[in-house]
């Protein structure tokens, strides 16, 4: 048994997941990495052990398999101090407009699954009386845009869930962080035209997540510029907004 703090990263093989795991490991946390394919996580686990001489556990987790959530949480060797959900799926908006299965998968991957699993951890943390929950949402959830509203609406739901959970859990000693990264250069955004001054690299997001946990921040826009951009976008009247091409 170590006296070190521990973090569990759901979506550990994503670029942001890897970056977050590194940031916490560097700060001395033991790390759990959870993802659909444990074999894919092995090299990252080896990396964290070699770099930081910490304990790393690997767990199989599928965000669409909500029926498995209770046994997943119950099967962990110990309840972590921090749980971070990076799980999400951008999907293809055009496809989601006519393909119900695709739209469903986007909604479930970004809203249903992450909300349910974090809700479950919240119950456990409240029972223990402490813990931190981090949900990586998106600026896309701040307002639905023509170009990605299926994804955006799911993220909006997730952001609202986290906001409500925070209000309730804070009374029980549990802190909830909402992270809105903006554009991040990852495999999810590969090939997309990103606006360079608004784009960050995954390690910046990883560090921001750790920082938010340690400083008990509620809502983090990883690049401060996004807070302003989204404030403007959110306040545009609908009559104007619907004519804009985003």
């Amino acid at each position, binding site marked *: 048994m170590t006296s070190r703090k521990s973090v569990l990263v759901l979506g550990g093989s994503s670029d942001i997941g890897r970056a977050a795991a590194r940031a916490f490991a560097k700060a001395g946390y033991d790390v759990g990495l959870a993802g659909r394919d444990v074999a894919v996580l092995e090299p990252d686990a*080896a990396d964290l052990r*070699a*770099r*930081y001489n910490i304990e790393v556990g690997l767990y199989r987790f599928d965000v669409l398999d909500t029926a498995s959530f209770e046994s997943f949480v119950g099967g962990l060797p110990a309840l972590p101090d921090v749980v971070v959900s990076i799980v999400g799926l951008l999907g293809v908006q055009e496809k989601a407009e006519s393909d119900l299965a695709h739209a469903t998968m986007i909604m479930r991957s970004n809203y249903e699954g992450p909300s349910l699993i974090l809700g479950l951890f919240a119950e456990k943390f409240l029972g223990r009386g402490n813990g931190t929950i981090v949900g990586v949402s998106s600026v896309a959830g701040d307002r639905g845009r023509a170009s990605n509203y299926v994804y955006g609406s799911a993220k909006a739901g997730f952001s609202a869930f986290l906001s409500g959970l925070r209000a309730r859990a804070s009374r029980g000693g549990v802190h909830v962080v909402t992270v809105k990264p903006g554009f991040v250069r990852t495999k999810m955004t*590969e090939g997309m035209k990103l606006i360079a001054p608004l784009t960050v690299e995954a390690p910046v997001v990883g560090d921001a997540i750790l920082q938010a946990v340690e400083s008990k921040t509620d809502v983090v826009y990883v690049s401060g510029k996004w807070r302003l951009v989204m404030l403007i976008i959110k306040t545009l009247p609908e009559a104007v907004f619907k004519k804009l091409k985003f």
Partner: protein
Amino acid sequence: MTLVSGWGRFPVVDSDVLRPRSFAAVGEAISAGTVARGNGRAYGDAAIGAARTVAMTGFDRVRWFDPATGRIRLEAGVLLSDLIETFGPRGFLPFVVPGTRFVSIGGAIAADVHGKNHHCEGGFGRYVESILLRTGQGEVIEASREQNSDAFFATIGGMGLTGIILEATMRLRPAKTGWIRERVISASDLDAAMRALDASDSATYSVAWIDCVARGKDLGRALIYLGEHAGKDELAAGAAAFPIGKDPGLRVPVDLPSMTLNRISIRAFNELYYRMGARRTGGSQVVSLYPYFFPLDSLKDWNRIYGKRGFLQHQCVIPEQGARAVLGDILERVARRGDASFLAVLKKLGQGDGILSFPLPGYTLALDFPLRGDILNFLDEIDRLVVAAGGRLYLAKDARQSRATFAAGYPALQRFNAIRKSLDPAGTIRSKLSQRLFDEV
């Protein structure tokens, strides 16, 4: 196709850039005219594929580390900065670091980069034990001094032309602190500078900054920076054993107009720099490894100082015998032009390790020139002096030398080409640099 360039921002050329996520995908990405690219710090066209460039920075995992011996296995995209920050506090540093910490391990091997300790400790490749290489033929081989040794020695300094480096096992240097005990010597001219470097052969680190606008009796005046690893007892009270490498705070926000660097501004800067340095001579001071090894890294995007057209670095090495006369001649011509950069560097090198490694026993001089006017002709003129003296140019910094200059400087080229051919009979691995200098036309 994407427009790609090196750190010097010349040439800018088209190449397909791929970012594979697995080693299997690296293999699939290789097609005719492919070369690997690390963090893009090669100055010219070395890390640009003839048709396709495979970006490797995503492969940044440490495979294993032995804290008892400092041996480490890494993916090729790990940056030296990452290695220093992660393992410095655990008591280990790379044996060899170049003037920037933002290079990848794969790039450091491919260019067999040298540091301020080459004269006594050799180049980066000396501390590499083995390399996992994806050859142009499609094989994945482990190469070391014992196994596939031809491929090993061709890959060290081979500019990525033997295949794509996937992983490497190397040794790190035990280091009690991340501080350097620095001593500055001022030299009033080239003779004094070369004497000071010769007299410092036993110093672990040595390098000279040369005022390349000084002329006449001041020609080649220099500040020589010597360094040794500092012990814990030498640190100021309360100082951390390992200083933090801050992200570059200052950055060059825009491309500066090319007029910024002119005779007057460079002369003024150099005068000030020389005088300030000369004031620090005498005793020694303990400085963080970051400013000591990587003075330019504190200024992010410093390549923009040279304006949008970019710049050329000319780094040659001249064999010890007769070096004084040739270096004097080069510096005289450079001083007469007056537009070389304020960062001219002179240092001594030892024997290189790879078949195509740049270093040879002698003196290396590195100069930056903004790309304008007749600079290409001028550098051809300098090359003739280098070739006549039996010297050569550093491929990691080159963007313009001729085939004749290259062939004259690298007599082991035929042997290298034979090994390259055996690893890649179809000639799949090709960079813009290899098209310019190596490949049969």
